[in-house]
């Protein structure tokens, strides 16, 4: 069973649709009991960092996830905001602490005032550059680039490049995929990225780090 962590931020259903598409049982939950029984954990999410952390803290999920992911080593996929929450802290509308699993900070993508055609949010399909091979990248379909669907205005500035697995370019170069041990996190939405997104999610579901 795959636990999709529900902390009231964003469309958990598209993620569970993909899990079901591959014939796996998806459980949308914030119950520590259920989470402890899952083989793989997915942390999706869209919206503001501070509200997300507030919800996670009030549901006491930080400790639950620490136990399952860091201590027990379960395969974990963070998506979009679910990547950003892994950072040490975020500068989105203030300074807020994240999980601190990845040394890094969340910063806003800077757009030059003069360039109204570089839009924010960074919304749409963009190519990623894989910087480190990994089982989760198996069988991706590259026709003149590997495009995935992004929607975000903030990115993670990673302090340790060792955890960088793919980058994306939007005025600045920022992490598209971060991998550390049993943790993989994508800034893009694999659940909305058609074939390659589905392939990446299938790879994750089959991943036994």
């Amino acid at each position, binding site marked *: 069973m795959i636990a999709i962590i529900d902390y009231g931020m964003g469309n958990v259903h598209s993620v569970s649709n993909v899990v079901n598409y591959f014939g796996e049982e998806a459980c949308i939950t914030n119950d520590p009991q259920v989470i402890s029984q899952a083989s793989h954990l997915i942390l999706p999410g869209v919206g503001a960092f501070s509200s997300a952390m507030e919800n996670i803290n009030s549901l006491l999920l930080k400790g639950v996830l620490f136990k399952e992911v860091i201590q027990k080593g379960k395969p974990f996929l963070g998506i979009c905001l679910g990547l950003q929450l892994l950072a040490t802290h975020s500068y989105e509308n203030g300074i807020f602490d994240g999980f601190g699993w990845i040394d890094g900070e969340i910063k806003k993508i800077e757009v030059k005032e003069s360039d109204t055609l570089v*839009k924010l*949010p960074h919304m749409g399909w963009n190519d990623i550059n894989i910087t480190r091979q990994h089982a989760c990248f198996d069988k991706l379909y590259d026709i003149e680039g590997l495009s995935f669907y992004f*929607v975000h205005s903030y990115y993670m500035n990673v302090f340790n490049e060792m955890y960088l697995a793919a980058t994306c370019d939007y005025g600045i170069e920022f992490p598209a995929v971060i991998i550390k041990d049993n943790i993989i996190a994508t800034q893009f939405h694999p659940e909305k990225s058609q074939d390659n*997104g589905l392939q990446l999610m299938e790879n994750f579901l089959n991943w036994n780090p």
Partner: protein
Amino acid sequence: MLKKRIIPKFLFNNGRLVKGLKFHNNHREAGNPISTAKVYDSYGVDELIFLNIFPGDESKTQALGMIRSVSKDVFMPLTVGGGVNSLKDIHDLLQAGADKVSINTAALDNPSFINEAAKHFGSQCIVVSIDYKEVAPNVFRVFSHGGTTEKDFDPLVWSLKMQENNCGEILLTSIDRDGTMEGYDLDMIKLVSHSLFVPVIASSGAGSLNDCMLALTAGASAITISSMFFFTDHSPIKVRSFLRSSGIDVRASKSSRN
């Protein structure tokens, strides 16, 4: 770099897809929503937009069911609009599988609804749909209620106001060009997309491959195409390959699943 997006736009009317002309009610039949969505998925289009034009609560329920079915099989961003006027409506659509909702009349009736919606759900999922018409030579006005009620706003002024209220995207639709296949309103697209920092989706008027190229060159982040896909032999694959050969950065990949 970020790709320009090609987005089929569907009008959903009482269980079926239809296509209109200049917002009049003389709709042409355009197919079953679920099978049509799957066809466009197999073409690898970048997103889909569904606008529910049938009024009433029963119709809202029907649209939710349609999105629920589509999102089980189609894994790309889905924008849904039509009669969205409460946080509950937005919540229901997102729960059903929509990624973004498009809001028109409710924003004109109460502009702060957009702030409120963005605060609750994040601006990335709040698309403001702007329908406008040329009411006198070079005088443009925004319309609500499916193009029937004129509002005292110029489209540029209104789009800047909506950006200030934290919407994530603007869907800019020329009523005059809807269904005509005579080309996009390039002047307005240029004006609005160069004045805003949020992405602008240009809508209405696509009739040829060249029209698509011109709208994207004018500054649109994305274009919607309806009649041209429904009633001509231009497919998304053809549009994409034409745009790529014209030097516009759109996705090359074609769906290989199935």
